[in-house]
Structure formats: C-alpha cells, structure tokens
C-alpha cells in the first residue's frame, strides 16, 4: 500500500499516523504539504489529527480551503481512498466529502481518554478485519467531536449503513444519552462514517495511537492491517 499524509499548518498527529502506517507497510508514508498542487501516486491519503489553522473559526474550516484539498477532491472523484481522523474528519465534513458536522463536545470540554467503538459495518477496506459488532478500545482527544447531521442525512446514513463506528460500552452496548459510553454527545453515538462507495472514512478517535503494546495495546491495528490487505497489488 502506498500512502500519503497531508500536513496543514497546525497538524500535530502526522507523526503518530506515520508510525502506524509504517508499522503495517514497512515503509514511511509520503508527507504532503497543504500548498502542494499535485498528489503522488498513492492508494491512500490520510488527513491526520491536530489543530489546522489553530481550529480558529471552526475546526477544519480553513484547511478545507487549502490548495491540496482540490487535489484530494479529484482523488476522491476518481475513487481514491481517504482516511480522515479527528481534525481530518472535521476537514472532510467541511469540504463536503462526508456529510454532517462536528460540534463542540456536549460538556464543552476537551476530552482525552480511552473510549470503546463498536464496528457497525465490516465490508469496507477500513473495517473488514473486524467482525460485525466487534468492540475495540481507542484513545480520543478532541474538543469538537460531537457529530451531528440533519434528520434527512441521518436517515440516509443509518438507512444505507454508512455509520462505520459507534461509541459504546466495553460490552458493546450503545446508549446515546449516556456520557460514559458516548462521551462527546454525538447523535446516535456516531464516531465514524464512510462514504457510499466505502472509500472515504472519517472518524474522531485515534486508532493510530494504539498500535503498539508498549503504548498500551494494539487495538487500533486492524484498521491499518485491513487497509494494507485491501491494497495488495
């Protein structure tokens, strides 16, 4: 799998992501600059976490207008695979590549803790290493992760099975009203979604920060291993 990571001014989890990608591919991903106007030949583009442009105005709003996003849009149109994590997810919604928006966490505080995700769909390049309904642990770290969408969009997401991950208890129960299992207040406990063609995935938590037993576990690894398998070529 050939991968690339986009760095915006204020991005700060590009190194974490590079470590995770290198771990499964054996090679360092290409690092792209927000002002680049072309993409290298890659299978996967990752928009990593951080505070692009300080997250001033709205998280991801200014990064969504970076020169490189025009390239990423056409990469998406050509069926390219894109993973947006945390700030990357916010950027994907701001560009309209994924629907909905991310509001301030319901408790109005930055949250940095482990959470559990239930895998809702397993026929995608991002999730096929898990069993449907599997639950895994992953860190999250964000101030604006409260996913929302209008009723129509929500209906479509749920109806077409575009919810990839939901916040859950360790036992897999999903309770949207309960902050111990749905920490940021996301609607329907939505933690990650995918595009209709299943090639664009956005999620708030950070599986890339849990890919090494030294750091407390490898629970996030299946996502990256799954991607590599999807691209054997």
């Amino acid at each position: 799998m050939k991968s690339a990571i986009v760095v915006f001014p204020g991005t700060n989890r590009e190194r974490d992501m590079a470590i995770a990608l290198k771990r499964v591919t054996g090679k360092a991903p290409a690092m792209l600059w927000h002002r680049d106007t072309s993409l290298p030949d890659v299978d996967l583009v990752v928009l990593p976490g951080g505070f692009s442009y300080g997250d001033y105005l709205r998280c991801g709003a200014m990064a969504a207008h970076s020169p490189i996003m025009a390239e990423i849009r056409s990469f998406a149109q050509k069926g390219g695979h894109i993973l947006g994590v945390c700030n990357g997810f916010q950027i994907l919604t701001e560009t309209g590549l994924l629907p909905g928006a991310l509001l301030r966490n319901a408790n109005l505080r930055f949250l940095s803790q482990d959470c559990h995700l239930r895998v809702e769909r397993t026929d995608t390049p991002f999730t096929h290493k898990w069993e449907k309904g599997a639950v895994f642990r992953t860190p999250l770290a964000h101030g604006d992760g409260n996913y929302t969408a209008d009723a129509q969009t929500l209906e479509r997401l749920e109806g077409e099975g575009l919810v990839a991950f939901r916040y859950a208890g360790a036992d897999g129960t999903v309770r949207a009203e309960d902050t111990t299992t749905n920490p940021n207040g996301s609607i329907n406990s939505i933690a990650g979604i995918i595009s209709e063609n299943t090639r664009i995935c956005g999620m708030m938590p950070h599986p890339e920060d849990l890919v090494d037993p030294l750091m407390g576990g490898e629970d996030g690894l299946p996502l990256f291993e799954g991607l590599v398998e999807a691209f054997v070529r």
Partner: protein
Amino acid sequence: MKKTVDLSLAQEFGLTPEEYDRVLKIMGRTPSLTELGVFSVMWSEHCSYKSSRKWLRTLPTTAPWVIHGPGENAGVVDIGEGYAAIFKMESHNHPSFIEPYQGAATGVGGILRDVFTMGARPVANLNALRFGSPETPRTRQIIDGVVRGIGGYGNCVGVPTVGGEINFHPAYDGNPLVNAMTVGIARKDRIFLSAAAGVGNPVVYVGSRTGRDGIHGATMSSAEFDENALAKRPTVQVGDPFIEKLLIEACLELMATDAIVAIQDMGAAGLTSSSVEMAGKGGVGIELDLDAVPQREPAMTAYEMMLSESQERMLIVLRPDRTEIARKIFEKWELDFAVIGHLTDTGHIVVKHKGAVEADIPLDPLAEQAPIYDRPATTPVAPAPLEGVHAPLSLDAMLLRLVGSPDLASRAWVWNQYDSTVGGQTVRRPGAADAAIVKIEDTTLGLALTTDCTPRYCRADPKTGGAQAVAEAWRNITATGARPLAVTDNLNFGNPEKPEIMGQFVAAIEGMGEACRALDFPVVSGNVSLYNETRQPDGSTMSILPTPAIGALGVLEDVSKAIGLGMTDGTAVVLVGETRGELGQSIWLREILGREEGPPPRVDLAAEKRNGDFVRAEILNGTISACHDLADGGILVGVAEMVMASRIGCELESPDSGIRPEAFWFGEDQARYLVCVSDAEDFCARAEKAGVPARLIGRAGGSDLILPSGVTISAARLAVAHEAFFPALMER
C-alpha cells in the same frame, strides 16, 4: 503615563532609591524613559534573581551526564544513544490569578519556548498547580480557567501533557501557583545556546508581531498582590498556540541548517531581556532598529516595544550569508521575519527608533552591577512534637474519606482535558505510574517524568520539606524502574523582604541541596517566584505555603522494562522501607482530625538511596511487576491507589508492628515503596542482604480490598469515593 524620568518614576517601575542611584552612576546622566524601563526590568526580581541568587549558587549543578546546567534557557542532560533531554519549569502565578485561562496558557507557551530555543523538539509537558480552598467560587473559576488554559495551549501545539500535581490550601486563595514544565529531546551535538557572537552579524526577529501586551509583566510578577491587582488587568497577554506550533516547526527546520549563531526566546521583558542577555553573554554589543520590528498596533513607542511581552517571538543571531535561507523557512511557515539589528563591538545596547537613539546602555555594568541582596533571614522555628492523636473512626471509614479528600482524590477530571497521547510515544499516561513514561522515538530509551512538592511539610519545616520534595521526585522516578538524572525547580515563596519568608527560602534550598547531593541528582534549571502574597482587606498579608516545586527526569535504557502501579493479580504485596508511623503534618491528621501540626516525616537520605537503588535494580531484573512509592496518605492509601488503578483487590495481613493502627496505615514515613512480587520470601531475603527493610503485607487478587479486620471494600466502591471530588466540585 508620566514621562519625566526621576526617582518617583523609577520607584513606580519597581526600583529602590539605591538602585536608581546606581542607574544614574552607570549612565552618568538621567536615563531616558526607555533606558529606565530596561534597567527596571533587568533588575527586577524576575530577571535578576537579586534576592535568591546567593542561595541558588549553593545547589549542586554538575554530574557527568549534565551537559548544561543553570544559566541557559533550560537544563540539558545526556540520556544516551547520542540524545540529550532538555527541560525546565517556570511559573505563571500572578498572570493566572488575574486571567486564569490566558495566564496558564501563556505559561505553557513560555516554557515550551525555553526548551525548543535550545534545539529540542518538545515531547512532554507537566504542571504543578496549587489552588485555594475548593469551597470558594473564585477557586473554582481559577481551576476551570487554568485547566482549560493548559489544555488549550498544550493540546493545540501537539505536545502531550503527561503529568503534574495539584494541592489545595487556603493559603493559595488569593495567589494560586501555576508552574509549567516542558521536556524536549535533541541530538546532543545539536544544542543551541544564547551567547551572541560575530560583530556585524544580523539580529533577526521571528514569530508574532509586537503589541502592547503585558508591559511591565516582569516587574509586576515581582510585586506583592493587593486588592488593586484586578486593576492591573490590561497587562494580560493572550497566547496563540497555533503560531507557537508553527514557530516550533520553523525553528527546528532552521536548526537543521547551519544558519544559527545564537537563539533565545523572548520571555519575560521580551525584546529587552533577550537582546541584553544574548549580547551580554557573548561579550558583544548590539544595535536594534525598532522601525524594523513587526508591529501589531500603530504608534508604538520604543519604550513599549522594548518592554512588550507579546507572546510567540524569538530573537536569532544568524550567519550573514544564511539570512535568505532563514527568511525562506519562516515564509514557508507564514511567520513574521525581520532583520532588526546587528551585533557591534561597542559593548553597549543601542536602540534606535524613528531616527533617534532611544537607549544607549553599557551592557557590562547593567549585568555586573545588578543588585544582589543578602536579605536577612530568620531560622524557622522547629515545630512542636505531635501529641494527643487518636483515631475517631474505623479504618475503612477513614480510608474512604481520605481517598476522596481534595489532595488525594482522583485528578482524572483534570488530565482527561489534556491530550496525553499525541505523538504516539506515551508509555504510561497520567495515573498509570508514579512518573509518566515517554518513549524516545526510534530508540528503546524512555524518559520518566514527575513533579513533586509537599507544601505543608515545607511550612512546618522548610529544610526537611525541601529535602522531601527532591526525595519524593527521585522516588517517583525510581518506582518506574528509571534512573533519576536531574532536577528542575520552581521556588515559589512569599515576600523575601520579610526575614521569616527569607528564612523559609534559605532553609528549603539547604534541604534541597542536601537531598540533591545525597541522591546524585543535580539541579540543571529552574525558576524563582517570590512575593506570592495577598494583601487582605484588613491590611495584613497572607503568604502562600513555601512551595519549592521539583520537576525531575529519569531515563530507562529499555523502556519496555518500565512498570506501573496497578496491582498484578496473584502476587505478594511487599512493603519496602522502615515504618515508624509518622503522623505529623500527615493528610490523615488534617483530613480526619482537622489539625495541621507536628513535624513532617523525617527524611533519611541514606535510607532513601539504599531502598531506591534496591527497588530499581529489582525492577530492572524483572522481579517486581508493580511498584508504588508511598507518600501522602501512607500505606493504606498507597494500597488503595494500586487497587483502584488495576481494579485488582488485595488482602492485607495484620501488621503486628507495635505501632498504633492509624499510625501504621496512614503515617507518611519516607523512603518507602509497595511492590508486587511473585516470591516474597526470596525478595525479602535479597532486601535483607542489601540492608533494606522489607516485609510482606498482603496478597493481590480478586476485586476487593480486604482489611486485616476482615472488613471488605470493593475496588469499585473505592473508585467511586476517589473519583467524586473533582466532578462534584467543577460540574455543579
């Protein structure tokens, strides 16, 4: 503002009549307003260390692994494999009282700059916080703002906040303490210093523009607080962590070239202290053209620019033929870059603005004739022995009360607002071990990091308290398996012009120095914050508890050997170290009996070293699976913390120690650890051989803490008591 320079203006600026006299002698004339400003900030307590320097010099600062001790922007130690760790702690106490969010945020920003200015990529932040009584609404506001501010800045710049400490005491009601620590990593042959060199070399300004922020911040932070403090609000600085993040990346990119001769952050007293210190240290002169300074506000005067404390700025002396390379890097990161002067051979700082010379000061006398005071100090009175102590409640009731008390309750509410995993190198997050563990990318090395101080001990007996703070930091690092290397400190005290406060200061340093020497644990950087007092409405002043906060760093050659503090199932729990049952100044005494009395626990540095070296060796040999050092709350609280961290229970044995139960279980004797081992007999035999007291006290297993009496408390129940305090206080 009044513009005539005279004694009364000098006094307004914080200079004494004698100091102003000295200014007149050095200048041979009445100084200009800008010159007076330069003298007043350079001679402020904050920049000149005039009350503390004599005593700071007594601290041990060398060891074979120390690369740079005090005197640089931060301390530098060799951690092996060609790497150096660079670290320092700094206070932002007064700003955090006035505007908690921005005060704390800019505190984090400032200490980050001190570290990356030396060439290090920051890899961890910690903080040491002291707040007033939790009951007052103002305390809650301050906690809320400080925690948001530390998170707001650290999370955005992408440096994980991995540790810290928090205490509450009414003595901090009008004067909270916010001490922030940053640790960075550099190749040890790529360290950047601040001494300027090369007459004619360009002096370059990078980062954010200069506004009228925090003018006279340095002199304000050295002034006692009174009820007018809130009127001084316009001096508050606002931080921009986004710009800081760009500045880190741009500086590190520039540091990978050979363009830099010297570099220094603009901290307190901004352009003044950075230019004066860089030129002074290099023994050269410096000429600044303020017209070239990037400015945020119109019509700024020379005085305002020289004293502004606008954040996120750096001063760099470049090789002249590398100026364009440097400019390109800062343009890429969209930061301001301006050549604002050059080095000269005059030995003077000359400041020009709009064609006029606004300041022309000889640097040597400015530094060499800076006031140094040997202030009168009274020896602290030894506390009376503790008497008349009895336990009013059952052991389990006292334990539940203690684990939920403000100083011992879970801090998860706080650290869950700090990004502790960004960077992907955090091996032990807050709460998982006695020191945080951060791996050094691309190596097997790990750093162990902690901050410690027990102010109630320091008030009762400053010397013992100073030693205890160092010993506890050393013990916390040891408990993870790491080798303690060096210390940074943040000495927070009251008004040094009062002999009893100066006495606390002198005694605390004496204790720290003894401990550092005995433990081979030199001080490589630090910060002093004095005048931490609040004038009360009735005219009296209230001083904070003497708080010499210690930040410490240790190293693990193989980070995979680091252990945490959670109980490991099926192991024997062994107590290492001697227990006499010292309840003086204990948390138990304060929380259960409402008394703050007696002497603090004795600090036996030889025992500390012996016990710690033994425990560390055992950890590295793989015979210890979990370890927790004993401090606040003593043995029973220590056991409960291990149980809560793992949700694995422990069945305790009856001590048969000849010590009263409350003293045995809650005494705060030093130099002790609880360890989980698979073979207690073997372990205790090895301990005995090493001259280290060790005894089996229980077995880990199940999910309940079982007291010797048979009373059972589930891990879950302990956790509920432990975790309630902060949410109940802050989310009401």
